[in-house]
């Protein structure tokens, strides 16, 4: 909104703002109230879709990790599934189970980071410290299993790069004991804290109809009462063999989105334990896949449930060892560009961090 009227005041939110995470939006204010939010993405643009056209199917696996730094396993999982479909490669059952286990750990990793950042931007530093401690212990398991801390580069077309170590179940039970103990701490410090709840209740309302119209997916959609989850609606990998519930909330405000994510952490832990019980022995990798494997002339569309919502890959292959075109649909794109301005309108300026982080966007995923 361009105006000379002195009753309006514009201030930038980001890209170098502690609570924006490199996302830029221009807020127009009337006093304390927000009149308009103009999102301006592009600060983190790295051109992944073009870069992927110059790399082979194997070389793209380390690249897609970087799409969303906080949830690398989901980005990898979508990419390898799409490329397996164009390459025509099967994956052994054990490989699929290992992928699901690591993808669910990735979801917990992403949600703990989100708890930490949210606690920080809303002024609760103890919550931040505990959450980042949890994140560190999950990262340590990443390091043991995959060899990388932040960028695992673990899934490749045809399976996974390494089998789970023998001590993995023990590590997981130790980790979950820690997270369960800390979830009580989070409840005490954040989710049941009156100061927090007052800041979040009836803030950034998004009803079910609007959430669908605005392209919301994942926890943001489920918090509005819509029972939609790709893991259940269109099962990929081995999710149809696993027991889990889909967490939904009714109200669709910031608090509902918070609670949805908090309960999803428990659900993810349930999935990991269930998958560890059912994991079969055998190969974890299809040896048919070579670094120079060529795809057929075909195209595919694959979507999965990442920590933030639906992550989709549209891949076109032209018969060479490199994809002809890859389109990535990141969940955060609609969260920041559509839902955030709609939710933030008519809120006060102090509610902006609460609304923004209740949507849990990843600016790296928006710009790609």
């Amino acid at each position, binding site marked *: 909104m361009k105006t000379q009227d002195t009753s309006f005041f514009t201030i930038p939110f980001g890209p170098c703002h502690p609570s924006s995470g490199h996302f830029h939006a221009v807020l127009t204010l009337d006093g304390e109230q927000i009149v308009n939010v103009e999102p301006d993405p592009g600060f983190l643009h790295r051109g992944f879709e073009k870069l992927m056209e110059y790399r082979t199917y194997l070389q793209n696996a380390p690249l897609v990790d970087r799409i969303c730094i906080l949830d690398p396993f989901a980005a990898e999982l979508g990419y390898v599934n799409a490329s397996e479909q164009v390459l025509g490669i099967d994956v052994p059952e054990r490989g699929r189970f290992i992928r699901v286990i690591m993808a669910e750990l990735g979801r917990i990793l992403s949600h703990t980071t989100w708890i930490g950042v949210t606690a920080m931007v809303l002024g609760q530093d103890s919550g931040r*410290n505990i959450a980042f401690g949890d994140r560190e212990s999950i990262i340590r398991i990443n390091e043991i299993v995959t060899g990388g801390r932040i960028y695992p580069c673990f899934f490749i077309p045809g399976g996974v790069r390494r089998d789970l170590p023998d001590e993995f179940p023990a590590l997981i039970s130790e980790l979950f004991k820690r997270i369960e103990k800390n979830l009580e701490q989070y409840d005490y410090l954040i989710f049941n804290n009156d100061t927090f709840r007052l800041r979040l209740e009836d803030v950034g309302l998004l009803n079910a109809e609007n959430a669908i119209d605005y392209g919301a997916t994942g926890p943001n959609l489920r918090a509005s009462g819509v029972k939609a989850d790709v893991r259940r609606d269109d099962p990929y990998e081995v999710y149809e063999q696993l027991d889990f519930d889909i967490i939904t909330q009714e109200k669709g405000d910031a608090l509902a989105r918070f609670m949805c994510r908090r309960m999803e952490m428990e659900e993810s832990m349930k999935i990991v334990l269930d998958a560890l019980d059912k994991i079969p022995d055998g190969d974890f990798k299809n040896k048919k896949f070579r670094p120079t494997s060529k795809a057929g002339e075909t195209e595919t569309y694959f979507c999965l449930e990442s920590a933030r919502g639906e992550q989709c890959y549209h891949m076109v292959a032209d018969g060479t060892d490199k994809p002809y075109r890859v389109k990535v649909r990141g969940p955060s794109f609609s969260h920041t560009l559509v839902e955030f301005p709609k939710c933030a309108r008519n809120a006060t300026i102090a509610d902006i961090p609460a609304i923004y982080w209740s949507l849990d966007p990843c600016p790296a995923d928006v710009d790609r």
Partner: protein
Amino acid sequence: MKTMTSSFFEPLKLLKNLFKKPMTLIFPMESLPPLEYYRGRQLLDPEKCVGCGMCSKVCPNDAIKMVEYGEKKCPEIHMGKCCFCGLCAENCPTKALEMTGDIFIAGYDKTFAVYDPEKLSHRE
């Protein structure tokens, strides 16, 4: 779920933190040891290397160049370009390359980042 209690003695619970171990490490003095499979810088065994160039072909970032070393070709790795994915070590047919836990590879100029076969074959 536990609810928030408002006891007068609640803040005294914080005192028990005085007897706990610190959660962080003070970096230059002590650091977290890298684990077995950690992907740090590569280590080359020039005797095993047959100079096939597979590592430079699979490298996603074009960080590896094959250079003359003695009578054959061996990899030279630019650590500034390397993303430590470990595909070179994994796809090496003779396992001449391996990933080590060496992460302290920072230097003061760009030439420090180029690891020729000689430098690459020495630990530290």
